[in-house]
């Protein structure tokens, strides 16, 4: 009688308390329900973001309630509102400061494409600066759309192989915002 043999009686006794799965699935399951947001809120979408975060729509139901105001402690960059060219190096710097794994949520038409602003001041979509995981257009998007986008991101996180998650720095490299401060 080998040590690995399990009797049907023992299987029946353990079936209520043991789950067999893969480590990557377990980790992704934990990640999908524990987003820590960095709210990069620059414009009017922020009011709608407060509505999503508040009790009526309540992103806490999806485990994404807790905003962290340091990029070092956050893994979901919520870019909420118009990004101007003056703001762009700051956004890239915040993205680069976030620890792995990290995801980016483009909240509202302005972050998705520049929205109605096609002028000297506005970045035409934050995907020209940093990789984006979910685009949620709308001016502003309905809270239901944001929750839908969050669920889509959760589904994406579940599918991702754990070892392939590293995003690295922005394709544009390290941002230098010293000239902004000097200006």
């Amino acid at each position: 009688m080998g040590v690995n043999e399990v009797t049907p009686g023992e299987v029946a006794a353990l079936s209520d308390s043991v789950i067999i799965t893969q480590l990557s699935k377990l980790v992704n399951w934990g990640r999908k329900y524990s987003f820590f947001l960095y709210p990069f809120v620059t414009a009017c979408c922020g009011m709608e973001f407060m509505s999503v975060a508040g009790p009526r729509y309540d992103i806490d139901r999806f485990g994404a309630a807790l905003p962290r105001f340091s990029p070092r402690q956050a893994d979901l960059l919520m870019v909420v509102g118009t990004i101007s060219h003056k703001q762009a190096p700051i956004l890239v710097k915040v993205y680069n400061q976030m620890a792995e794994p990290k995801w980016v949520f483009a909240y509202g038409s302005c972050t998705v494409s520049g929205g109605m602003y096609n002028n000297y001041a506005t970045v035409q979509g934050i995907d020209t600066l940093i990789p984006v995981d979910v685009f949620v257009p709308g001016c502003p998007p309905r809270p239901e759309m944001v929750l839908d986008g969050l669920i889509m991101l959760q589904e994406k996180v579940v599918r991702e192989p754990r070892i392939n998650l590293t995003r690295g720095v922005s394709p544009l490299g390290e941002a230098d915002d010293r000239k902004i401060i000097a200006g």
Partner: protein
Amino acid sequence: MSQGDNKGYGVVDSAVMARVRAKLGPLGLILHTHNQHGDDTVVVQADDILQVMEFLRHDPAMSFDMMMDLTAVDYLGAERTHPYLEPLKARFEVVYHLYSVEKNHRIRVKAPLTLENCYINSVTGIWAGADWFEREAFDLYGVVFRGHPNLKRILLYEGFEGHPLRKDYDKFKRQPLIGPVN
């Protein structure tokens, strides 16, 4: 509120406008006056702006102690819409909105400027609050305010070329600090 018709140019002067006319008119400081939708407006030469503003601020019957707003307008291609702009070959206007908390009355002051001589004296010495307004007008229109304590860009960044709210600024010109020019 002053009297005047709603079609644009008033007939009967308000008390404010009557005193402005009586005091500044003989000095030759008034280019034009009108009353649009009940708002008294006086147009003066840019070179005389400090003299006019000192009067409006310190005259006991005026005492405009609050500068509500200061901005600029570019009338490129539309100079004909304003009868006083064309003879001066003026393209820009600096617009001041003044309010007197004490007297509860208002006035709008305008000063035309040409592109070649786009300079006007700063009123920060009279109203300290004009500081950032003048920086904004300089940033976006390129109007230079002489005597301003810190005349540099306020909204755009160092290294930005041109003044984007001028009508001849190419609306497709992009100068990002980082990322593609799109």
